[in-house]
């Protein structure tokens, strides 16, 4: 495979995408799990499909549409949740299904040949473009910068937002920053893992790292390492067995998570 990696640009792009999406999915996943935003992330990803459809219909870059719809979903779900005093499930389900329905509608009413949207639904790391890589790099750097600069504020807000607010910490700024970063990360990961499989790339590396450490900073680091290893190993395996890389990455991550769970159970019983 190494020969092919040096010979083909699409494989080099795929390797970079694995590295960056592994880091981004890993760190974003820890925040998503600790802030209990897993289902909301699924809702944001599926709402993004509406933006992809709008992009195809009106002839602009579908990823820009996905970014707009994702940000709208993140703020919309948050606002509906606060206004309605209900848990996030109902607004998440509404955005989830309406976003998908809009995507299907927009693509359905397009004149001429219908575009192939499979890469947005299931992801295809081998079709990642230079633009996708720039987007992925930018969002990964932004997320890492946020974590490095405002780690203490993030820790305080995630642990106890009400107390932090009484103490004068700008919890609203931190919470909105988290929403924006999660929405952008979801869009960046869609090109690699797809709308349907993206949740696994967010949750499994973070869940694996949670089995090994109880310190948030170590969990962030380990989760990024797991994300990179799963993505690269999935890419190599899919190259040899000729199966979709997204599916291999998800199954490999789930397998390692299961092993870690069994190991923990064995250690407890032993």
């Amino acid at each position, binding site marked *: 495979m190494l020969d092919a990696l040096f010979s083909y640009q699409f494989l080099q792009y795929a390797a970079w995408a694995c590295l960056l999406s592994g880091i981004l999915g890993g760190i974003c996943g820890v925040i998503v799990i600790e802030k209990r935003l897993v289902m909301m992330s699924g809702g944001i990803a599926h709402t993004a499909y509406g933006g992809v459809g709008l992009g195809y219909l009106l002839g602009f870059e579908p990823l820009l549409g996905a970014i707009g719809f994702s940000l709208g979903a993140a703020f919309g779900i948050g606002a509906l949740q606060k206004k309605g005093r209900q848990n996030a499930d109902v607004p998440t389900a509404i955005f989830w299904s309406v976003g998908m329905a809009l995507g299907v509608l927009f693509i359905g009413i397009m004149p001429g040949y219908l575009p192939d949207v499979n890469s947005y639904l299931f992801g295809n790391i081998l079709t990642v473009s230079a633009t996708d890589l720039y987007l992925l790099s930018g969002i990964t750097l932004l997320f890492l910068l946020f974590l490095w600069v405002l780690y203490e*504020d993030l820790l305080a807000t995630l642990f106890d937002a009400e107390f932090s607010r009484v103490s004068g910490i700008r919890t609203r700024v931190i919470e909105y920053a988290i929403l924006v970063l999660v929405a952008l990360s979801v869009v960046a990961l869609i090109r690699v893992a797809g709308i349907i499989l993206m949740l696994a790339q967010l949750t499994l590396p973070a869940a694996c790292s949670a089995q090994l450490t109880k310190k948030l900073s170590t969990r962030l680091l380990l989760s990024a390492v797991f994300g990179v290893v799963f993505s690269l190993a999935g890419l190599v395996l899919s190259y040899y067995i000729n199966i979709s890389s997204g599916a291999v990455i998800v199954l490999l991550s789930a397998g390692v998570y299961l092993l870690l769970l069994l190991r923990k159970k064995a250690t407890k019983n032993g």
Partner: protein
Amino acid sequence: MSPILDIRDLTVCYSGQPALNHVSFSINQGEFVAIMGPNGGGKTTLIRTVLGFLQPTEGSIAVTTDKIGYVPQSSSVDRSFPITVREVLKTATLGAGLHPRLWRKKTDESRLDSCLEQAGLCEHYKDRQVSALSGGEFQRLLLARTLLSDPELLLLDEPTANVDPLSREQIHFALKKLAPEKTVVMVTHDISVLSGTVSRLICLGDRLLYDGAPTLTAAGLNAYWAGGEHHA
């Protein structure tokens, strides 16, 4: 003596239904006040309105200090969160605003130790994971965290709920030592505080039912809750 907390004709409604109905009282500096009442009587609503989480429908709240400490119900904080005791305490030393890494001040470890001690814990707890603490230890950690901001007015929401009797006594002892230097207002269901811990009792049952010396027995409290009498 001027009141540190003055509540005038306060009404707070949820979806049009009053949780607090024209409540008025004031609390002076150095008092240790227990707020009791039946479930749904507006105790937590009162604390949350003073803290600014809820807006009054009518009436006013005047607080003469901006140094307010808050100890939430322990059940509202996620104890499984991956954080150590030291990290929890450090969150209380940050102060107002945002705290970029390069502008952050170094933490004074001796202050952390002193506040842990005031809350009845020792410095050896600092490296422990919060998830490894017992219910009583966790509640005392929340108290120590609040003390780090050196509050003049301390608001506590059921600080002894779900803790064992020994921890409850330790928490009451720690709080009693804080008054009269600090003003302590504690929402509680625990009638043991009426035997010498607090200096004043306020009963709420959507409106003010009792405000006076903490001399009521359990039977007396029940009579107030059932009869809705008002004693100023």
